[in-house]
């Protein structure tokens, strides 16, 4: 304890406080039942359950942060102090958890906390009963210390360790999704799947292999000092562009191959990711580029969906029985008109007031769609059903209500087929968004976002420019809604909730305002992950909220911020357009 007196700034109480916060979090996880509920899913078969992993991660995190704080405080014997700090923090976490176990065995607390069940307590003491109370304390303290050890390691070792461990946890979570389709393929994939994954999680060997492979990838590719990075930096700019293009093509190829051989569930999830990415790209124009917060964005989605529904349905609300490909541009156009319709009245409104006004618009559209007033056309609460699936080929004639038209050709019937439609749309829309961003209009949007008055003073027509932001943003959302309609085959006003708009805003903010790859990353993280873990559905929103908070604290500019990519882009532009500038720059 001498080092604490020698050090002026780091105090024991700091680390204990972190430990207690971690402990409260761990106890909270137990009390809400998530630890037990995830007890039968494992990260590593028969070794660590997902529930236990959550607790271990908590202890690891507290140890890591306690060590980080001790290092930042500048103690005289940094390593030893930080290790002590992490041990203390882990111990604090463990003690609270131990207290819970003790309490659970001695007193019947289930009257209040129904989740403190014998099964939970057994999973914490590994079945030792009350004599095993010391176990969670010791384990959490040890894991906390490990957090400190990892923090104390040099970055080149720390990063692959953390990335590898993270991959093991994710691998365990995803194994339930990946294993069944792989086994269904028979042959080698089945053998690989059975070797790496058990029915509830990774096998121990699987965990080792996943860890080793991912850590190796991290060392060779992602680290700043890695040979791949180094040689990338040494490439001339145009070669670098080719390298980036190749990566992009690879990513697209992967996206194309992804749902092949996977179950319909995964296909459904990736379609939903694409649809939210489409909406996100639209929101990225209104919010990310032009800075206009639109909380009624779901309205455009609804308009796109209902247009497709009414014009293609073979059900009782079908108006025209047109093929999907004819209706798709109409739906986008109607959504654009709706965008202008929303944009006009709110042109002069700024900031918070704009959010409220648009919020109202979204609700109005939802209520109208579900109202008795429009029920003769939109079906009211019953919605529009019997939406004709898209057909590559020619459609047979319309024979009667409730009878789908026959498709002579390839029918895009299920999520697997519609995925490709959605993917193509995402690629096209992303390209359009990139072109818009780098255009005269895109710069005017950003100028409005930064300072509306100054932009106007420089000759930017605010009315036109803002309207274009609403209209083009709405067109992407309408496209998304149109695909959604044929994916589900029916539309209901109840699926046009405010939460959809908020999700889209969250995608843009988490991905990085104004960043196009950010939208894709944001949809993967905020729509893909929760959809993939639907089995934990009771805790989905909890995870969602926690993830949002973590991202906003750790990466306030978003997961993939726009500025860096933008600057790279301009450097490339300069190289092309101004050859005279580069030699002078080199000589300086």
């Amino acid at each position, binding site marked *: 304890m001498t080092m604490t007196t020698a050090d002026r700034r780091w105090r024991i109480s700091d680390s204990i406080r972190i430990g207690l916060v971690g402990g409260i979090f761990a106890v909270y996880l137990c009390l809400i039942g998530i630890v037990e509920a995830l007890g039968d899913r494992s990260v590593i078969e028969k070794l660590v359950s997902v529930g236990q992993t959550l607790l271990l991660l908590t202890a690891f995190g507290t140890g890591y942060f306690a060590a980080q704080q001790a290092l930042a405080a500048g103690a005289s014997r940094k390593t030893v102090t930080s290790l002590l700090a992490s041990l203390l923090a882990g111990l604090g976490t463990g003690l609270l958890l131990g207290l819970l176990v003790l309490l659970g065995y001695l007193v019947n607390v289930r009257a209040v906390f129904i989740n403190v069940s014998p099964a939970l307590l057994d999973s914490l003491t590994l079945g030792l009963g009350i004599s095993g109370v010391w176990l969670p304390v010791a384990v959490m303290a040890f894991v906390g210390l490990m957090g400190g050890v990892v923090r104390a390691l040099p970055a080149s070792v720390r990063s692959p360790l953390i990335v590898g461990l993270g991959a093991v946890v994710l691998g365990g979570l995803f194994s339930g999704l990946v294993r069944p389709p792989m086994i269904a393929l028979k042959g080698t994939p089945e053998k690989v799947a059975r070797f790496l994954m058990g029915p509830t999680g990774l096998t121990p060997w699987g965990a080792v292999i996943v860890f080793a492979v991912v850590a190796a990838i991290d060392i060779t590719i992602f680290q700043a000092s890695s040979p791949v990075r180094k040689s990338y930096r040494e490439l001339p700019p145009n070669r670098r562009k080719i390298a980036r293009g190749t990566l992009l093509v690879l990513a697209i190829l992967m996206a194309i191959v992804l749902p092949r051989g996977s179950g319909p569930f995964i296909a459904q999830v990736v379609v939903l990711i694409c649809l939210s990415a489409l909406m996100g790209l639209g929101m990225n124009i209104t919010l990310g580029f032009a800075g206009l917060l639109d909380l009624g964005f779901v309205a455009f989605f609804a308009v796109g969906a209902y247009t497709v529904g009414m014009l293609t349905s073979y059900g009782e609300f079908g108006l025209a029985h047109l093929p999907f490909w004819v209706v798709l541009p109409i739906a986008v156009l109607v959504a654009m008109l709706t965008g202008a319709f929303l944009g006009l009245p709110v042109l002069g409104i700024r900031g918070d007031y704009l959010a409220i006004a648009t919020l109202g618009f979204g609700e109005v559209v939802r209520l109208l769609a579900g109202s008795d007033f429009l029920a003769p056309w939109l079906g009211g609460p019953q919605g529009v059903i019997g939406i004709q699936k898209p057909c590559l080929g020619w459609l047979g004639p319309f024979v009667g209500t409730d009878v789908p038209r026959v498709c002579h050709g390839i029918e895009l019937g299920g999520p697997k087929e519609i995925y490709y439609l959605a993917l193509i749309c995402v690629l096209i829309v992303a390209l359009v968004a990139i072109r818009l961003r780098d255009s005269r209009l895109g*710069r005017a949007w950003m100028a409005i976002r930064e300072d509306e008055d100054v932009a106007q003073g*420089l000759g930017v027509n605010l009315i036109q420019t803002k309207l274009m932001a609403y209209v*083009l943003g709405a067109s992407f959302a309408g496209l998304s809604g149109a695909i959604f309609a044929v994916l589900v085959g029916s539309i209901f006003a109840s699926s046009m909730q405010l939460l959809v708009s908020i999700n889209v805003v969250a995608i843009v903010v988490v991905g990085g305002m104004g960043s196009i790859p950010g939208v894709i990353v944001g949809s993967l993280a905020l729509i893909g992950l929760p959809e993939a873990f639907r089995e934990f559905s009771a805790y989905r929103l909890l995870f969602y909220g926690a993830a949002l908070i973590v991202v906003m604290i750790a990466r306030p500019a978003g997961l993939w911020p726009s500025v860096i990519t933008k600057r790279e882009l301009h450097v490339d532009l300069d190289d092309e357009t101004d050859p005279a500038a580069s030699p002078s720059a080199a000589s300086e």
Partner: protein
Amino acid sequence: MAILKAEKVTKQFGGLVAVHNLDFEIEEHAIASIIGPNGAGKTTFFNCITGFEKANNGQILFGGTPIQALRPDQISHLGISRTYQNIRLFGEMTALENILVGQHQNMHASWYASVAGTPGVRREEREALEEAQRLLQFVDLGGQGDLLARNLPYGGQRRLEIARALGSKPSLLLLDEPTAGMNPRETESMMHFIRRLRDELRITILLIEHQMRVVMGISEKVTVLDYGEKIAEGTTKEIQNNERVIEAYLGRGSTRTATARPAASVPSPSGG
């Protein structure tokens, strides 16, 4: 010929009269200054010219066209551009992009042509980029085009704001305290720079300025405002000796001592 002519311009904010019955003229290719104590209505007058505020009364003619009822973007299209007292750059955009926004009104690409990437759009973008680079060089910010505007040093931000205004190819440039917060050396180069704007680019320049060294150093005409009214106008020399100006700047008491001193010096020889 007067490029800008204001006739009996009045601007009120509630009970406060910021600009009162102001008549003002500036000749083409001139450098003129507006001075006056804080709150004299100088910036409000700028805002009236550029359409940021609508004058309650009076008329403003630019090249013979009345502009007092136009929107700021329309006025900008006619060829008036400005900078701001507290720098108002687009902070999260790069220096180059700031200038490109300035060029917005001289570009014509429609959004669908931009999406299609037509040769016309590409050429226009390339030319705009070259022009922006030239303007960056002109304001001594060459090679810093990829920096975010908010990361530029203070003097660089002032010059970038001018470059952005130049991007719109104005015939009249309004500079609101271009040397505010600058040290003597920076001020000196800014004066030199303003002269270059007029001599090389043939732009008429109207500036609001507090540093008398700048005002007296470069302006051909000085207009003095106080409480929204014009109290004096003329060459720098005329203004320096104007009693009402001294009074407005230093207060009534100082005028009396200023006028009293020669008066007092008269009786002393006769008394002695």
